[in-house]
C-alpha cells in the first residue's frame, strides 16, 4: 500500500437546512484498498458519497486527490479525476436502453456521431464479464428487474478508467449469485490497484472483502477499524454508538415490555 492516499477527505461538513448531515468527516482511501463505509440509516453515508462524486458538494473541508487538494463541484470533475460512483438510487434513465445507460455521458462517438455498434459490442463484453443476465442490451432499463438495474449501474461505473470506485449499497437488491459476483468484482478491483469505497449494511460482506471499516455515526467519524483485527461486535457497537448490539437491544426491549 502506498503512502499517499489516492483520495482523502479532511474535515468535510455538509448541512441541509436545519440538518447537519456531515460534521468534520475524515476518510482516506489508498490504491489497492477496500474501505467499507458503514453506519445506521441516515448516518450520512450517501451524503458523503455525493460530496465526493460532485453531486452535492461539501460546504466545508478539503478533498485531496493523490495528495493535492481538488474542488469537485460537478459530477464531470469527479469523473475526469477517475472517480466512478454507483448511487444508492441508481440514477438510470428509464427511457434509454441498456447500452444507452452504460455509456451515458461518455458515448463512443466520432465527430459527434454515435458508434452504436462498438458501444453494443463493449456492453455485451462487459456484461458477460460480470455474469449479468439481461434479456437484451437493447431494451429500455425500465423493463429490467431491480437487481438487473443494479448490475447495469455497477457495470456503468467500470467503463472509463476509474482509480476509485464508490459502491453505495451495491448488493442491496441482488440475489446470492449476483452478490457473490459483486464481491468477487470488488476483489478484482483491489487486485488491479483501484481504491474502493463499499457501503453496506451487511457485516458478512464487509468482513469478506474490506481491508478497513470506517464507521459514520450521526454524520461524524466514529472510528476506523482494521477488519482482520476487529471483531464484528466492536464494529456494530461503533455503529450503534453503544457497547450493545441489535441482539442485546432486542433482549433489553423485550425485558422492558414484559415488565
Amino acid at each position, binding site marked *: 500500500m502506498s503512502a499517499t492516499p489516492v483520495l482523502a477527505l479532511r474535515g468535510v461538513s455538509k448541512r441541509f437546512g436545519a440538518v447537519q448531515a456531515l460534521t468534520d468527516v475524515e476518510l482516506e482511501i489508498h490504491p489497492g484498498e477496500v474501505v467499507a463505509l458503514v453506519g445506521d440509516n441516515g448516518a450520512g453515508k450517501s451524503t458523503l458519497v455525493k460530496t465526493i462524486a460532485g453531486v452535492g458538494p461539501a460546504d466545508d473541508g478539503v478533498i485531496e486527490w493523490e495528495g493535492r487538494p481538488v474542488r469537485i463541484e460537478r459530477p464531470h470533475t469527479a469523473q475526469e479525476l477517475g472517480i466512478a460512483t454507483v448511487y444508492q438510487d441508481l440514477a438510470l434513465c428509464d427511457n434509454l436502453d441498456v447500452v444507452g445507460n452504460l455509456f451515458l455521458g461518455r458515448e463512443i462517438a466520432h465527430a*459527434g456521431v454515435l458508434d452504436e455498434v462498438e458501444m453494443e459490442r463493449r456492453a455485451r463484453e462487459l456484461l458477460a464479464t460480470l*455474469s449479468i443476465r439481461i434479456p437484451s442490451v437493447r431494451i*429500455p432499463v425500465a423493463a429490467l428487474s431491480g437487481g438487473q438495474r443494479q448490475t447495469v449501474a455497477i457495470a456503468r461505473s467500470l467503463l472509463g478508467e476509474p482509480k476509485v470506485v464508490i459502491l453505495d449499497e451495491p448488493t442491496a437488491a441482488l440475489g446470492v449469485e449476483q452478490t457473490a459476483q459483486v464481491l468477487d468484482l470488488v476483489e478484482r478491483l483491489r487486485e488491479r490497484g483501484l481504491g474502493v469505497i463499499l457501503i453496506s449494511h451487511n457485516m458478512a460482506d464487509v468482513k469478506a472483502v474490506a481491508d478497513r471499516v470506517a464507521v459514520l455515526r450521526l454524520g461524524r467519524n466514529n472510528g476506523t477499524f482494521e477488519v482482520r483485527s476487529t471483531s464484528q461486535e466492536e464494529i456494530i457497537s461503533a455503529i450503534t454508538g453503544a457497547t450493545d448490539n441489535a441482539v442485546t437491544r432486542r433482549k433489553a426491549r423485550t425485558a422492558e415490555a414484559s415488565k
Partner: protein
Amino acid sequence: MSTDLTPEDAVTVPPADPRLLVREAGFAGYWQEFARKLRSGELGSLPVVVGLIVICLVFQLQDSAFLGAENLSNLFVTAAGTGLIAVGIVFVLILGEIDLSVGSVSGLAAAVFAVLNIKHGMPEWSALILALLTGTVAGALHGFFFARIGVPAFVVTLAGLLGWNGLMLQVLGSNGTINLDDSGLVADLTNYYFSDVAAAYGLATLAVLGYFLAALRDARRREAAGVPSRAPSELAVRTAALAVPAYAAAWLFNQYKGLPLAVVIFVGVVVVFDLVLRRTSYGRKVFALGGSVEAARRAGINVPLVRMSVFALSGTMAALGGMFLASQINAANQSSGAGSLLMNAIAAAVIGGTSLFGGRGKTWSALLGVLVIQSIASGMALLGIASAVQYMITGAVLLAAVVIDSVSRRTQKTAGRA
C-alpha cells in the same frame, strides 16, 4: 478505452436467459414482433398512419379532387411552415417541456425579415439569417430563464408568447403590413418548384439508395463485430417501405408543377434532425434529460446547456417556419404567427406520436402530424365547411392522439417499457 476487465475475467459466460423470447426468422418473425409491440403499447407511428389513411379515404369519397396532384401538392407546401415549427416542438417535448412562444417568434422573425429587407434594403440573405438568429436568441432567452433561473418553461414561454408578439407589432410599425418582394428569396420558399421531372425521381432514388446503403453498411459492421444485426430480408422490406411512398410522392409532384422547394427543405430538416436525435451524442443527451434529469446530471451532462440549446433550436425552427408562412401570403403582417398556429404546431408533434410525458419522440412525428392537420384543413376547405367545424375536428383528433399517448404509456408501464 474499454474497461479494466477483460473477457478472461469471466468465470463463466452466462447462457442466454431462457425466458427471453427469441424472434423467429423471416416474415413470421416480423409479424410476431409487431404484434408484441402493439400489445405492450409501443404503437409508434401506427395510429397516425392509420388516421391519415382514414382521413384521406373519407375526403376522397366526398370529393375526388382531394387526392388529386394539385391538392396534395398544395397541401404539402402549406404544411411545411407549421411542420418546421413542429420539429422544434418535438425536441422540447422530448425534454418533457413545452414551448408556447413559437407562434409569436415565427411572426417576429417574419417581421424582422420584412423590415430589414424591404424597409432598410438589406440583402435578402443577410436579412434572412438575422431573422433566423432573432428566433435563436428568443429561444435561448427562454432557455436561460428556464434552465439557469429555474422558472417553469410553461410560464417563460407564455411570457414570450405575449412579449414577442408585442415586439413584432412594434417592429412592423404603424402601417401593420409589409409586402415582400414576390420574386425574392422568401417568396421562392413556397413558390419555387423543380419542374424537371428528373428532380423528384432523382431525389427519391437518392434517398432510397442512401438509406439502403447505410443500412447495409450498418448490418455488415454489426455482423463483423458479432452483435445482432438485421437480416437481409428485413433490410429489403424496410427499403421497400421507404421506396413506395418516396416514388409515389415524386410521381405525384411531377403530375402538378414538379418537386416543391418547400417540401425538399421540410423533409430535409426532418431527416437531418432525426439523425441528430438518434445518432449523435447531443441527441442522446436530449433523450436522457427527458428520461431522468438527475441521472443525466450525475452522468456529467451539462443539463442547463442542453436545455438552453433545445429552446434555442425551437426558437430557430419557429423563425424558419415563420419564413415559410410569410412566403405563402408574401407579406409580414400583424396577424403573422397568431391564430391557431401555435396549437397546430404542438398538436402536430403530439398527433404524430411524440409523447407529452417526455423521453419519447421522433422528428418524423412532426411530418406525419402536420399532414393530418393540413389534410383536415384542406379537405374541409374543399368541401366548403366552415372553420368552426374544422377546429372541432382538429381538436377531437388531438384529444384522440393524447388519449393514445396516455394509454400507450400506461400499457408500456405494465409491460415494463416506460
